[in-house]
């Protein structure tokens, strides 16, 4: 691939927001009229496409979709309830299987998942849930401390969100007990937000951070997490 072709591919990715211009060969473009022209046109096109997307977003904001609460799946609810004891048993078997497969270790390295699984063995169920609530709360608080997050910061946040989802799934069998039943809806809500954070790539943009913050604030998620920890019910 020639330098011009490489530059062209970088510019295309830049226009689509897939990379920045760090790898663009500017020294080559200084004397190459084709690359120089492409560079100039790409900056312009990027600006216009970003402007177009922002304008469409503004139009969407002007006319928000009406959201009325629905009860989406009563039949599924009944069947899940009936299956709950079996689901608990199945989840325990899966957990045991996962513990076994993780401890056998493919390459001998210790992952965050390994450490968490080891801590699960030593902690009581109550402590595990409290630890999870605390970690989730701290994660949300740290997430909203600035504008766009890029590079290693964004990656770290995504990894943490994915890890919290993993941890929540491991805790699910414990949440099937009747006295903890009312905690599940909150943790299910939290899981959606974590899922949205963990997906995607590149920077965590301010617009996304604002959306998550809005969803968390509108549901008083942080307050509810704090109350659960203080109630002493877990």
């Amino acid at each position, binding site marked *: 691939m020639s330098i011009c072709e490489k530059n062209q591919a970088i510019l295309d990715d830049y226009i689509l927001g897939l990379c920045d211009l760090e790898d663009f060969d500017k020294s080559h473009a200084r004397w190459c009229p084709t690359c120089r022209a492409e560079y100039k046109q790409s900056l312009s096109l990027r600006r216009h496409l970003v*402007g177009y997307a922002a304008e469409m977003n503004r139009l969407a904001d002007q006319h928000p979709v009406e959201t009325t609460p629905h009860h989406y799946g009563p039949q599924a*609810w009944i069947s899940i309830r009936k299956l709950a004891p079996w689901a608990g048993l199945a989840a325990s078997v899966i957990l045991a299987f996962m513990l076994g497969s993780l401890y056998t270790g493919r390459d001998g390295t210790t992952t965050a998942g390994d450490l968490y699984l080891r801590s699960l063995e030593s902690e009581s169920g109550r402590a595990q849930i409290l630890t999870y609530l605390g970690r989730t709360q701290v994660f949300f608080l740290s997430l909203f401390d600035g504008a766009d997050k890029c590079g290693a910061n964004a990656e770290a946040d995504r990894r943490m969100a994915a890890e919290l989802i993993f941890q929540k799934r491991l805790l699910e069998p414990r949440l099937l007990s009747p006295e903890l039943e009312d905690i599940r809806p909150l943790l299910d809500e939290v899981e959606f937000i974590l899922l949205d954070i963990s997906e995607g790539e590149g920077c965590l943009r301010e617009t996304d951070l604002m959306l998550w913050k809005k969803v968390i604030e509108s549901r008083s998620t942080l307050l509810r997490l704090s109350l659960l920890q203080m109630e002493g019910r877990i």
Partner: protein
Amino acid sequence: MKAVAAGNDEAASVLVDLYQKRVFTFLLGWARNREDALDITQDILHRVCQKAGNYNGQAPLTAWIFTIARNLYIDHCRSKDARRQCRTIEMDQSIERRVSAATNSPETTLMGKEVFLRVKNAIDRLPPRQREVVQLRLLAELTLEEISDTVSLTTGGVKSTLHNGLRALRKELADLERGTYVHM
């Protein structure tokens, strides 16, 4: 998603809050008709909640939701009443009025109305597949992998479709580059 399938309304409303704007913005670019976009968005979110139990976690949730969005929109366009609207090239008047109102407001706007309409029309004139992936990238902000899962193309196929779309947009919007200051 198990919680939504099990009838947890709170979980369903979190799902709706997280995805409604992205789906609506995507459809706003695709449907060319604001009312249609609104109706279909509501249908999509309702359908997503109904089908939540089918989500198996193999594909990213975003891709799964946009696959439903895309299929519902295609179904909508196939219906007799909508066929004409989906084919029309003209810009929906209600969107044009809204852009006009927005650009005349004291609020800071990112681009002028004329430029916005030029860009929108250029995107609308792309072949359907190119237009679809460009909109999924620009408006719905899906990653290449998510677009690949949504439109059933390989990641390489998505990239080459996006690049072909860009080539067409470069040609169509070449005259807009005037005034771009370049320093190297």
